[in-house]
């Protein structure tokens, strides 16, 4: 474990990127920092989706865990008054892990369109409950107070951004290590041929279940963090099916080539939607939709495949 963490090139470069981002954020204007935060938080959920995507599974209902994380943070504050970041994150992780673990028993037997539909159904059940229940905030949701750090209430959002970066970094490193493990390397094998994997002596159902729980936790973390960054939770922008669609869109746009890709994709998406809604308030979905079609047609490997190409070209020039 220790040797992988230090030898792995991806983790080294990723650490460098996140570190420079943390330093750069000190000098960046507020709106950029905000967009980066939304992008990274979504990126966490996308990291989870990428894990499933590598196995050939598309969850069209990951807004479920996004919402569970976000509402976990909001309800924790409502009932206990807790605003501490660690307790908030722990709450988001535990609740999404429990729900993911339980639903995983059912979902692990499903593939392709049925997996997508069943996860959609589960997320819409949650949406239906949230929208109609007064106790759970109904369509208005709740506001979320400023995050505290062991009683310290920071003035700027920098402390939150820094914690977000640390969580992303840790999650990406964890997923990287997981993908290198034999359980993780089964991903593509399961996608290619499940029966052979079974013959090799592994349980496909268990491998899928583990993956599902990890991805649920990632999405829960992302949802909890976006609730903190936004200061507000509501069903339509966090649990409705369009959010799941958005997350899957970012997954395709990012590409499954690397654990860094989801964060790049998340940040690109945040800026894309901000700019598009700024300059074309009635046409930003059009831009997003056209981008999605364009990527399916012309760039099936996502943004990451572009980066990889540029990287290789650079290496050839220097080496």
């Amino acid at each position, binding site marked *: 474990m220790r040797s992988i963490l230090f030898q792995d090139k991806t983790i080294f470069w990723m650490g460098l990127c996140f570190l420079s981002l943390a330093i750069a954020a000190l000098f960046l204007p507020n709106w950029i920092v905000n967009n980066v935060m939304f992008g990274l938080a979504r990126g966490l959920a996308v990291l989870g989706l990428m894990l499933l995507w590598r196995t*050939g599974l598309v969850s069209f209902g990951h807004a479920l865990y996004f919402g569970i994380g976000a509402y976990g943070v909001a309800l924790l504050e409502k009932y206990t008054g807790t605003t501490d970041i660690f307790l908030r994150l722990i709450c988001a992780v535990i609740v999404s892990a429990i729900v993911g673990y339980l639903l995983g028993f059912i979902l692990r037997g*499903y593939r392709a369109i*049925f997996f997508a539909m*069943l996860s959609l159904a*589960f997320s819409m059940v949650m949406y239906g409950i949230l929208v109609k229940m007064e106790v759970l905030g109904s369509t208005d949701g709740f506001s979320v107070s400023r995050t505290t750090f062991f009683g310290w209430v920071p003035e700027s959002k920098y402390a939150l951004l820094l914690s977000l970066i640390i969580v992303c970094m840790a999650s990406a490193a964890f997923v990287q290590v997981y993908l290198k493990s034999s359980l993780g390397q089964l991903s593509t094998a399961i996608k290619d041929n499940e029966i052979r994997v079974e013959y090799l002596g592994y349980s496909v159902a268990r491998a899928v279940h583990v993956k599902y729980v990890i991805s649920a936790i990632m999405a829960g973390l992302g949802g909890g963090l976006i609730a903190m960054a936004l200061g507000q939770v509501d069903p339509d922008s966090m649990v409705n099916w369009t959010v799941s669609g958005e997350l899957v*869109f970012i997954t395709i746009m990012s590409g499954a080539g690397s654990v860094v890709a989801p964060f790049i994709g998340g940040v690109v998406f945040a800026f894309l939607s901000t700019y598009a809604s700024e300059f074309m308030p009635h046409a930003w979905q059009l831009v997003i939709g056209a981008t999605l079609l364009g990527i399916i047609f012309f760039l099936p490997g996502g943004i990451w495949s572009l980066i990889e190409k540029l990287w290789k070209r650079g290496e050839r020039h220097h080496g």
Partner: protein
Amino acid sequence: MQLFITILIDGLTYSSYLFIVSVGLTVIFGVMKILNIAHGSFFAWGAYGAAYSIGLAANAGFPAWFGFILILLSAILVGLVLGVIIERVILRKMYDQEEVVLVLATFGIFLILEDLILLVFGVNPFFAYQPMAYLGNIKLGGISRDVYSLTLLAAAAVIAIGCWYSLNKTKWGNILATVIFDREISLAIGINVQAVYTATFVLGTALGALGGAYIAPTVSVAPGFGIDIIILSFAVVVIGGLGSIPGAVIGALMVGILRAIAVHQMPELELFVVYAVMALVLIVRPEGLFAPAVARKI
């Protein structure tokens, strides 16, 4: 008793409306294996087309019954224009992709069409009450009901019977069955599969648009009109079995009546019951309650 009748009528009208929208979705899936999210936009386009043209016609002094013709015309127009463009230009290049990638592509189309509505019709809601006012009200079991909503029942019945008849009793239905069963063999025996796909997609699109156009006079047509209905019709077709027309009837009846019961007895559960049943059906019988048994091809 009165409550029972209210629930029954509410449930049946809502089911009819759901059926008209969902049958287009299930036909497209059955033939082309595309789970079409853009169907929600077809629905919204139909609604906007009908509401807009009925408003224009009323201002120009046309009689109110003319609205019914406009409803039908908007559905056909949306089907022909959007259906042909989307199938020919975008989907045709994607048939070799995986099903989930196709779902995503239709999600992209959905987003584009949603904003095109804003660009064409603006953000203000449309009201096209004329056809509904024209038909007036009727007393049913002591409760006043608008006749217009009741005509939905007749429309749904006509569509259901029409679909069943053309699929089972006509040459066109036989061709469709062949294409569904095996695309390659159909090509080999000289069926123009491309044309069948285009025709199916246009038909499905027009049915989705008809659902929207028909419901337009009873509501205010506003942005975001197609967002909720698409997932509801997913629930309908999943419950009944993807690709099955009798399944769509059963699914629509179940969802419509369950929802009506919930609305009158426990409003908090209105959405919950629908999706809970959808999840339950997927867990117990993923192929849907009424999906035909499929022989495995080797």
